[in-house]
């Protein structure tokens, strides 16, 4: 899929090639016939929105996932990456945003864990010597005998890099390595990357920061919806063209909805902040209004929602709900105040999977299901659950069947039902359609729409841009815990939102 001629220094035999890789999880096609070619001594950036398939691709490159079809070639010969240990042996290593070190082992042990000398004994002397030599060669001053606990994130990353060097990695994947680094630390990392490139290492670089990508890359590849869109030398790409390719999909079934007449203010948030999560966030949601929260993963959108729901309360700022001060210290208080939170993680935070859908739906407001002698009325529970089953088209043999056995889309509808059953004034939706199929997605959209029309105030956190843009009356864009922009529906285009989310807005 090479489009233009590659720069001279990388115009050699590729070190790694992915040919027509496909991977599905259930009904979700994470990757569809993706090809990628990596050359030695190259920094190759991968761009794409959340869910474009980058993570799946690197998991396949490092042997964490096996592709459903397609082939991986190293030095022109087909290989299988059976596990991440296998990939490391073959010279493919990865560094993640959060380094995976063992805090109770020392620096040298961390560098050599998993690939010490053969035989049962550790050769401590040679291990320390070799570690010191590697760290010295990349200009990092850390005591190799110090324990890894208490190292800064940047130091931890240099240990990961040292580990990759000790593995003699020829392909090094760096997944958002700068996301939690300071500007100075990032500079050091960039020097290291260029240094590694000088040694002939092929670096796959993933970052949401366009400036970094365009400063460092030799090649820029764009993914969208699990497909490879383009691979071009840096000189042939601009940030604008890359963003256009990242978001440039058809709008599909979603037509922008008519604005619902907005009356009273339900939620008003003034300069809300929480240490290490978000700062100075202010907005209002009126009755019947949908306010979309756009931004990259980790931009602090979920943290704002969790603060309003009392899970991780805000440290600063004020919020009012229906005109009354709103500072919940627990989810119970938030629920009693009229807020519902449909979590993005329906398995971990949303549903009790072994329990039936009727039991899940009644759980937040069990007090309302009182029958004879104050006992739990299963009849009422079943009636309510059945009503939601009809309204939301939940496909299940019985509302008494455990939700763990349902499909993702149906689980999502049960989760929605569970929270609608609390009859909230404000509904916070966090990634309400992640990982569910197209049909269920359209139904959920339709339903969100109806709820707003009935006067519910809705806070919609979503990384699915078309979803945010078509459903929202206003779009609030966040980046690294800061509110970058609040756009009216007419001003909110995919390009403008992405530019704010990646810090490229002028």
């Amino acid at each position: 899929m090479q489009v233009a001629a590659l720069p001279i220094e990388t115009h050699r035999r590729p070190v790694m090639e992915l040919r027509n890789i496909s991977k599905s999880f259930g009904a979700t096609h994470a990757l569809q016939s993706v090809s990628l070619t990596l050359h030695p001594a190259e920094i190759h950036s991968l761009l794409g929105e959340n869910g474009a398939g980058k993570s799946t691709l690197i998991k396949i490159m490092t042997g964490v996932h096996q592709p459903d079809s397609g082939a991986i070639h190293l030095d022109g010969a087909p290989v299988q990456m059976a596990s991440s240990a296998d990939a490391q042996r073959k010279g493919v290593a990865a560094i993640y945003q959060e380094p995976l070190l063992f805090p109770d082992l020392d620096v040298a042990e961390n560098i050599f864990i998993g690939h010490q000398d053969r035989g049962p004994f550790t050769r401590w002397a040679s291990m320390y010597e070799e570690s010191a030599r590697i760290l010295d060669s990349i200009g990092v001053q850390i005591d190799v005998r110090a324990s890894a606990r208490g190292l800064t994130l940047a130091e931890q990353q240099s240990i990961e890099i040292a580990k990759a060097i000790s593995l003699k990695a020829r392909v090094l994947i760096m997944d958002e390595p700068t996301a939690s680094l300071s500007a100075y630390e990032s500079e050091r990392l960039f020097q290291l990357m260029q240094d590694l490139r000088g040694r002939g290492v092929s670096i796959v670089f993933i970052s949401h920061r366009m400036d970094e990508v365009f400063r460092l890359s030799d090649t820029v590849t764009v993914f969208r919806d699990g497909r490879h869109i383009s691979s071009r030398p840096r000189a042939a790409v601009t940030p604008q063209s890359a963003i256009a390719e990242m978001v440039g999909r058809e709008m599909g079934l979603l037509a922008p909805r008519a604005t619902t007449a907005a009356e009273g203010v339900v939620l008003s948030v003034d300069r809300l902040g929480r240490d290490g999560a978000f700062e100075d966030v202010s907005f209002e949601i009126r009755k019947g209004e949908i306010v979309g929260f756009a931004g990259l993963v980790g931009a602090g959108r979920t943290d704002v929602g969790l603060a309003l729901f009392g899970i991780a309360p805000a440290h600063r700022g004020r919020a009012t709900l229906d005109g009354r001060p709103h500072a919940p210290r627990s989810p119970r208080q938030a629920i009693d105040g009229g807020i519902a939170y449909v979590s993005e993680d329906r398995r971990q935070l949303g549903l009790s999977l072994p329990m039936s859908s009727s039991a899940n739906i009644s759980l937040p407001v069990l007090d309302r299901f009182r029958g004879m002698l104050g006992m739990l009325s299963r009849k009422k529970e079943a009636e309510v659950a059945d009503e939601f089953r009809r309204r939301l088209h939940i496909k299940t043999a019985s509302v008494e069947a455990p939700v763990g056995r349902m499909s993702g889309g149906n689980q999502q509808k049960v989760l929605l039902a569970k929270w609608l059953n609390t009859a909230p004034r404000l509904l916070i939706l966090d990634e309400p359609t992640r990982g569910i199929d197209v049909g269920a997605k359209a139904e959920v959209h339709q339903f969100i729409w109806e709820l707003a029309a009935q006067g519910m105030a809705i806070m919609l956190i979503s990384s699915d841009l078309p979803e945010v843009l078509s459903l929202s009356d206003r779009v609030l864009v966040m980046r690294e815990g800061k509110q970058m922009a609040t756009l009216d529906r007419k001003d909110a285009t995919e390009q403008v939102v992405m530019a704010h989310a990646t810090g490229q807005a002028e």
Partner: protein
Amino acid sequence: MNGLRLRPERVRELSLLAIIAIAVLVFATIIDGYLSPRTFNRIASSVIIIAVVAAGQTLVVLTRNIDLSVGAMVGCVAYFTGALLAANHGLPPVLAIALAVAIGTLMGAVNGALVVFARIPSIIVTLGTMAVFRGLLVEFSGAKSITTANLPSWLVNLPQMTVLSIGSFDVRAMVALALVTIILFQIGMSVLRVGRHFYAVGSNPDAAHFTGLPVRRVIFSAFLLSGAMSGLAGFMTLARFGTITVEAAMGLELESIAAVVVGGVNIFGGAGSIIGATLGAILIGTLEQSLFRLQINQFWLDALLGLLILVAVASDSVLITRLRKFWNEARAKRRRLPAATDTPS
């Protein structure tokens, strides 16, 4: 948690009934005069103590915790209640039972407080209190025993008291007391709103917190109730044996946990029933008393209990998963719906 169809949990309970029946038949062929009211009473007096403790243990295990101190609590309650009764022969029976339950509840509160407020894992907390409670017992008793001679006559005669006779089978008062308590607990777990809380907290504590449930209060009350049930079992132990040494009810933690897991309560919390645990207690009591009559060494009995726990937990994860999968696939074929749930990438 009721199902219209035969759920894996029900299969577990039905197969347990079958195993109990087979065990009884096997013992009946080996032991002369096994199928007699005498055997029934002997086994029942052992089963009820295990079953009552197992009911409390079930609540604890449902919330993803464990209570290793039940044996020590039962021993303490039996001894202290015995000492109180020895000193005050005039104490009314109902008050004696209430006192026993209160002492147990107090000890359960210690466990609960340490787990919930000090945030110490329950396996460590109850391992510690198991030793501490037993130590208190040794200290306060001065290693002296309670004997039948010190106790009021109503208590000494209680194990023989019969409330109902079916043919030549007598239902003893203590069996009735245990049955009523267990049935009340089972009903409470299925019809009370708080019963639902135990399952919700155990099956997904994070989601329970997110849903606004009082997670810590639920866990605390599980330990409290386990203590209360141990209190009742302590009273029963006192009545059953009359003689209480500092070693009373040692090993009951193993028996109760065996009953719970054999009865199909998920050791990782969130699933299981009091009825299941009671069936487990019946199996274990039957095996113990019958093997005892065959003069099998106590050490082998303990080893058998350990083996039962391992088999039960292993079959739980393997068998139940297989059964689920099988049913899912069968259902999917029937409805031509995909059984697979999608995995987030």
